[in-house]
């Protein structure tokens, strides 16, 4: 059993997992951007929404990753506030998400995945 004489750890587990979700969403859009021309165009938030100028699809990838982080943080915070959770389990889950995000942004890995979709080449 974790130390419970302090505040419950749910909100901290929430923000760690949210950071993992943000990282993974960013990584997923890195791959999707290369796989689909439609998604590539959608991600150009600078041209589509006037957010930045000349940034290209990175504007969408960055803002969607940030949005995923903030929204999932809010949702998980509301769901876990006041709760004591097994931090080891939640940390492991958060780490899996973060490492998934790292992997999907690593060029040799995302290029390998892109090559699995011949239409994208």
């Amino acid at each position: 059993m974790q130390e419970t004489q302090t505040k419950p750890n749910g909100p901290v587990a929430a923000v760690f997992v949210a950071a993992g979700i943000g990282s993974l969403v960013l990584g997923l859009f890195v791959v999707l951007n290369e796989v689909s021309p439609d998604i590539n165009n959608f991600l150009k938030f600078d041209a589509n929404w006037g957010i930045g100028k000349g940034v290209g699809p990175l504007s969408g990838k960055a803002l969607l990753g940030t949005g995923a982080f903030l929204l999932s943080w809010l949702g998980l915070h509301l769901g876990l506030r006041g709760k004591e959770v097994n931090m080891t389990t939640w940390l492991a889950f958060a780490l899996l998400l973060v490492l998934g995000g790292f992997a999907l942004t690593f060029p040799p890995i995302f290029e390998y995945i892109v090559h699995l979709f011949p239409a994208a080449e």
Partner: protein
Amino acid sequence: MEFTERELWAVIHGLVLGTLFLLAFAGGLAGLYSLNARFMTPEGIAERTPRLLIGTWGMAIIAWLTVITGTFIVYPWYRAAPPEGTDLADPSVLGDFPRYLLLASDSTAEWHRFGMEWKEHVAWMAPFLATAVAFAVLYYGVNLYRRGDVRRAVLVFFTLAFAAAGVAGLFGAFITKAAPVA
């Protein structure tokens, strides 16, 4: 002795914010590692906590400022396309177009294809991870030392935030050396 606007922003993005990030990380890591009841008195922990808060929140804010300035100010200069008709295989006419300058030569193309492609994406994870750390420190405050489970998680995420920023910073320095934004 003067900077162009582009050089100034490149210095702010890479050198000023990057150096502050490193300083905040070093201070924060030392503070977090030593935040242990075996090493410190309760008075010592209470005295150290405000500095830890400043260090972790400083790191998170600097990480956000770094990726925002990098993505929305410096990066468009990096990826700007030369006018139509420019010989993309001639490095001598691509000095104002760093991305195309790197791609013009086999000896430098990987700086873009591998270095920049990784840097521009992985850098955005640093503020997510650093914000999570800063929130945990803020949430527990002086009681963080009593939560070994949270402290371990904070140390792991703090190190990952540094790793993400480190990859981005390292490639940023190399790429700037090969094809400066100027």
